[in-house]
């Protein structure tokens, strides 16, 4: 395993007119990991992924893939990266096999047999025009275009959005199968946390164009506690309170780090990932690092 991060962003930002699509984003995606990007619609997930793919030029900062700086008109970063756009664009008039041939012509590295076999196994008709396929099948064709170039990093923008459960399962299986075989680094976005949890090592929470927090899922779970106790103005010394929810007689707090001892009136509970993410989505302060993202590569 090399020391170069699969994806690195430093102070990355993109402004559209007066509005910032992404602001001051710094993160590192380690090689071999599966990192999820979660946040509500409009949070900046697509902006970040498009900047990483070179479809957009940053207003501030820079992003690089395996050490190669990403520029819209250069091709160096394209060699090791596969990009799956949210719109899943394909040419409707082309047949599936013709689409794969397009991938062959436009890429230096291409595994024709692998891509065809992949779609064959999933019962996608190779002679059918792409415009006539179902949404799920189109998504699989788009994915096979990304995978066929044998990338070391896959960037996926909401890959399973709007797909029926079977298609979603097929797409995830295909994606994870590639990771199992080749140790591909994956960086994918979603606004549904439950989709990401079983699949990802690490999580980046994005909201209102800024990074709220990053960390391994295990670390996030271990590092946060929910405190439930009587409602009141509780000042917790030394505790990092992420969010507070007040009911009529009860307060629920999410804290990061070791919770202080508050006595018998307070319950200390383990939050699930949903609760943690939601708490950060409503918090206004800037992102903070829990721990360096875990890079669980393949065992040597």
């Amino acid at each position, binding site marked *: 395993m090399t020391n170069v991060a699969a994806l690195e962003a430093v102070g990355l930002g993109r402004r559209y007119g007066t509005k910032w699509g992404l602001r001051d984003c710094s993160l590192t995606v380690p090689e071999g990991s599966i990192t999820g990007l979660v946040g509500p619609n409009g949070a900046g997930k697509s902006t970040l992924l*498009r900047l990483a*793919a*070179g*479809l*957009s*030029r940053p207003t501030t900062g820079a992003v690089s893939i395996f050490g190669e700086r990403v520029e*819209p*008109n*250069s*091709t160096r970063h*394209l*060699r090791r*990266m596969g*990009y799956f*756009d949210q*719109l899943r*664009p*394909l*040419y409707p*008039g*082309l047949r599936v096999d*013709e689409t794969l041939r*397009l*991938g062959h*012509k*436009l*890429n*230096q*590295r291409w595994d024709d047999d692998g891509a065809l076999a992949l779609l064959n196994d999933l019962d996608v008709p190779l002679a059918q025009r792409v415009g006539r396929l179902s949404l799920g099948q189109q998504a699989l064709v*788009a994915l096979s*275009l990304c995978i066929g*170039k044998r990338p070391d990093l896959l960037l996926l923008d909401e890959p399973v959005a709007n797909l029926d459960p079977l298609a979603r399962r097929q797409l995830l299986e295909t994606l994870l199968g590639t990771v199992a075989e080749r140790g591909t680094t994956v960086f994918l976005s979603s606004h549904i946390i439950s989709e990401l949890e079983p699949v990802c090592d690490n999580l980046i929470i994005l909201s209102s164009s800024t990074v709220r927090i990053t960390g391994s899922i295990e670390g996030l779970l271990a590092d946060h506690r929910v405190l439930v106790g009587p409602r009141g103005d509780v000042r917790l010394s030394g505790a990092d309170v992420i969010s507070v929810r007040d009911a009529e007689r009860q307060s629920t707090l999410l804290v990061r780090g070791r919770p202080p001892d508050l006595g018998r009136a307070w319950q200390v509970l383990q939050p699930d990932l949903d609760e943690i993410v939601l708490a950060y989505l409503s918090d206004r302060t800037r992102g903070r690092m829990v721990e360096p993202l875990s890079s669980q590569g393949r065992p040597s």
Partner: protein
Amino acid sequence: MWRRYRVLMALTVVGLGGLGIWMLLLGRATDSAEASFACRHPFLDCQVYRGALSLSNQADVINFLLLFVPCLLGMVFGAPLVAGELEHSTNRLAWTQGISRTRWLIVKWCVVGLTLVSVVALLTLITQWWIGHAAERVNFSPIEQGLGGTPIHPVFFPITGLAFSAYTLFAFALGTALGAVIRKTSWAIVSTVVVYTAISVVAVLFVRPSLAPQLFATGDPSSSAQATPLDEIRGGWYLGFGYRYAPGTHETGPSADVVGQQCAVQNNFEMCLSDHHLQLGSIYQVQNHYWELQWRESALLLLTSGALLGVTVWSVRRWRA
């Protein structure tokens, strides 16, 4: 890449092929008609001119359609080349594979552009033949005394020689550039038609007449007593009448046209002219300047097409998600 255009290309080939066949048939028909007894005697019923579907009218229709061919091809193939990809977001697919935007565009442009030029070049072979057999004769009928009917005439010039292909390339380059800049196919189509028409008109009125030396024939073009035979003017491209200083007597000062027009409003017009050493006559381009004009105009169109390609490349490189 070809496959995406297969339907359009097929339609184009069929359409232009049909036009070509029509021209061939018409040429043959006109040939045999003109050889017939009726057409050699001016007051008999010559089928070349008889009725609405007469060979003469058909020839005019064909001519009209041919003039539109470059613009149509430019619209249909050029406008969506970049704009279509942007509208359907397929550029997000094409530009994240393995080749740069510049290379992608240039390859696409060259493949489609050169194909169009080749198809039109083939059609030009038919058009050249057609002009000699159907169009030209028609204009020499005894009923029409008008001037024209040779390839240098503005009605035939852009559909023959190199110009037909050059105008097609130009229209394609124009459509592509406008599509890339405007980013919407529908608007690109409209603006391509407008700009192409404007450029065509400017070319005929202002550029082409000056691309080769103009000739001057003194005397009233319609009178029989003049130095240059009428046929040479008729066989060339009549640009209108004008004034010039008699050779060897040019004085510095106001231009011949200005002085001539001042004389024209006076009573003793002829005396005014001779006092100022002016001559009144026909200005025209002679037929054997045809190829010179073709080369130069095509070269200008080629250069402009190159510049438009440059604009397209610049626009594509500038695009941001």
